[in-house]
């Protein structure tokens, strides 16, 4: 019974994903905005980064200039997440040894 229910849910989700990816024009847009691979719709911010990134940060690699300069707060949070994960792994595995004694 449980397996049947899970199979039905999985097939429904797969059908929805495949429907959306095969004809993305029906994906809730009525004004001609299509989710077509290779033609993104809103590119103003990225064009600003591509055209001004070299003058403002001096880096050839635009991805690096976004990661460390324009969106530095994202990278700060991500580095904090990595640091906290290492701390948590150490704490969890250290509790293992304390309980063994």
């Amino acid at each position, binding site marked *: 019974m449980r397996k049947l229910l899970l199979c039905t849910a999985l097939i429904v989700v797969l059908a929805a994903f495949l429907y959306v990816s095969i004809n993305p024009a029906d994906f809730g847009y009525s004004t001609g905005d299509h989710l077509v691979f290779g033609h993104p719709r809103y590119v103003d911010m990225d064009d600003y980064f591509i055209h001004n990134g*070299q*003058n*403002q*940060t*001096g*880096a*050839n*690699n635009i*991805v*690096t*200039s976004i*990661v*460390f*300069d324009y969106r*530095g*707060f994202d*990278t*700060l949070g991500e*580095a*904090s997440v*990595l*640091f906290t*994960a*290492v701390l948590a*792994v*150490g704490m969890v*595995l*250290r509790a*293992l*040894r304390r309980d*063994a004694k």
Partner: protein
Amino acid sequence: MMSKIVRTQANFLYPLIMIFGFYIVAHGHLTPGGGFQGGAVIATGVALIAVAYSYKNVKTWIKKTRLTATEAIGLLTFIITALLGISRSFFYNWLANTGLLFGQPVPYGINPGYLNTAGTLPIMNFAVGIEVLGGLGVIIMYYLHYIKEVSKNAV
């Protein structure tokens, strides 16, 4: 400890992996790559050594406390470098186009790539590379250290 063939290959590959990882970190503002990718490559070298020689020998060469200290130093360098530009804003690029260290102005458009550019970005790349190296390395060492609590016939 693995056989002699594996150990010889590890001895041969370890310096190459180190050089490749630091190359990726140092050229993060010119070529594909950066701090995270380079740090992950260097941590792969640590994993290679830990697999080829057994953990019993490796734990005297690579100390966990030193790896943790490396990670903390990387995160602190990252935050302090961002904080030094606080007069304009947090994460302000205060070294770019000044003529100082990493401050050479870059010609606009396609160029062959100059290492002495990009202001604070190479410093942050290095800091994050150090941090990822310490974090992933210490995760590997923790797993190898506490695996013998679980399994009787561990390495």
